[in-house]
């Protein structure tokens, strides 16, 4: 979606534009570098990640994740306007505020070059830059937040994107191109419904140890009708029947397995 064909840097100075605040799906530009092709993804980040990103030539990396076009969400702490640009310091609490430069188009009167006041929460989309060891951003879009829930969504998107993009390719199971990263046991929907179950038991693929055990057994079954719940109970002596059924239900809901001849037989959706 957002990572197709890059993001044009012209005509986006100031004002509100359609910001692609979302994260890119994994498996697209990873390892597909043709010569000096720059990654065309836009990655939600924290200021701390941008400050500590490693740099090789013109390319920045947060861990294994290549970052170039990024979004941050923070509060404006100070502003400085000059003839050709506005300089902001944007603070997202993860470290010292980030310097963000926004070029002002002096020729075009329709472009709003009003300085946003300190205390304004904004979403900044732009490129990470490093000059004489000093990190900063050059923004192509700075949008004041109207809905403060974007602070929350950005926090979640940062974790999601970096987790998904850090995963090695071969553990992305299930359907092609989709996000399978870090699925939590009970999704959070608004303020109602389930709550985050915590990551303490999570392994790399976002499944708990129990779920992984059950999934491995189901995957390993060569029979066309799959493996039955009874077989699972036999093989997993340490797991109670309710626990096995709970794992099976979760795996089925997430699309890792499907039922075959009846409701008690399952096969894995992965092509092993």
């Amino acid at each position, binding site marked *: 979606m957002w990572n197709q064909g890059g993001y044009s840097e012209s005509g986006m100075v100031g004002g509100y534009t359609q910001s692609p605040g979302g994260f890119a799906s994994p498996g697209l530009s990873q390892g597909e570098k043709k010569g000096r092709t720059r990654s065309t993804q836009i990655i939600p980040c924290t200021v701390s990640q941008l400050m500590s*990103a490693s740099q090789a030539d013109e390319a920045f990396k947060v861990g294994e994740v290549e970052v170039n076009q990024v979004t941050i969400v923070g509060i404006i702490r100070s502003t400085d306007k000059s003839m050709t640009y506005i300089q902001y310091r944007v603070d997202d*609490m993860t470290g010292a505020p980030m310097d963000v430069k926004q070029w002002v188009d002096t020729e075009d009167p329709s472009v709003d070059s009003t300085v946003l006041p300190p205390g304004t929460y904004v979403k900044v989309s732009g490129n990470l830059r490093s000059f004489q060891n000093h990190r900063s951003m050059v923004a192509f879009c700075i949008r004041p937040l109207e809905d403060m829930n974007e*602070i*929350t969504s950005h*926090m979640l998107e940062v974790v999601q994107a970096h*987790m998904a993009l850090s995963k090695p390719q071969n553990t992305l199971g299930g359907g092609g191109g989709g996000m399978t990263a870090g699925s939590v046991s009970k999704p*959070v929907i608004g303020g109602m419904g389930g709550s985050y179950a915590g990551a*303490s038991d999570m392994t790399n693929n976002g499944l708990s140890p129990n779920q992984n055990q059950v999934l491995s057994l189901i995957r390993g079954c060569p029979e066309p009708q799959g493996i039955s719940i009874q077989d699972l109970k036999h093989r997993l002596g340490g797991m109670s029947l309710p626990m096995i059924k709970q794992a099976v239900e979760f795996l089925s809901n997430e699309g890792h397995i499907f039922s075959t001849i009846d409701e008690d037989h399952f096969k894995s959706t992965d092509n092993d």
Partner: protein
Amino acid sequence: MKKEEASRINCSMLLQHINQAVCFVGRVSKVHPSGKTFTAVDGEGKTVTVELNCCLEEELSGVVEVIGLVSNKGVLMAATYNLLREDRGTPFDLELYNEALKVIHDFPQHYPFEAAVSG
């Protein structure tokens, strides 16, 4: 004061951050008549006492984001605060923010609160 990072926390995490800079988000509950202190409630319904270094000039209400140090009694000594506006349609979902807090604390490698040494 050169402020660096301030970990986002809720009331349950206060005592683990004594003498550390934190960022607390909650709904203003009661303001002390002196204007020097107020209480706020987080997404789990727990309450924190916030002490200001200067008096409140005007009435404080709604969702507030406070940055400050946690005293060894678990009181938030505020350095600065700002209100999260709710006048543009959507109210701020404090419970959802609380869930997001748990996520970022469960995955500190993907939401670091300090400038780690770059590789």
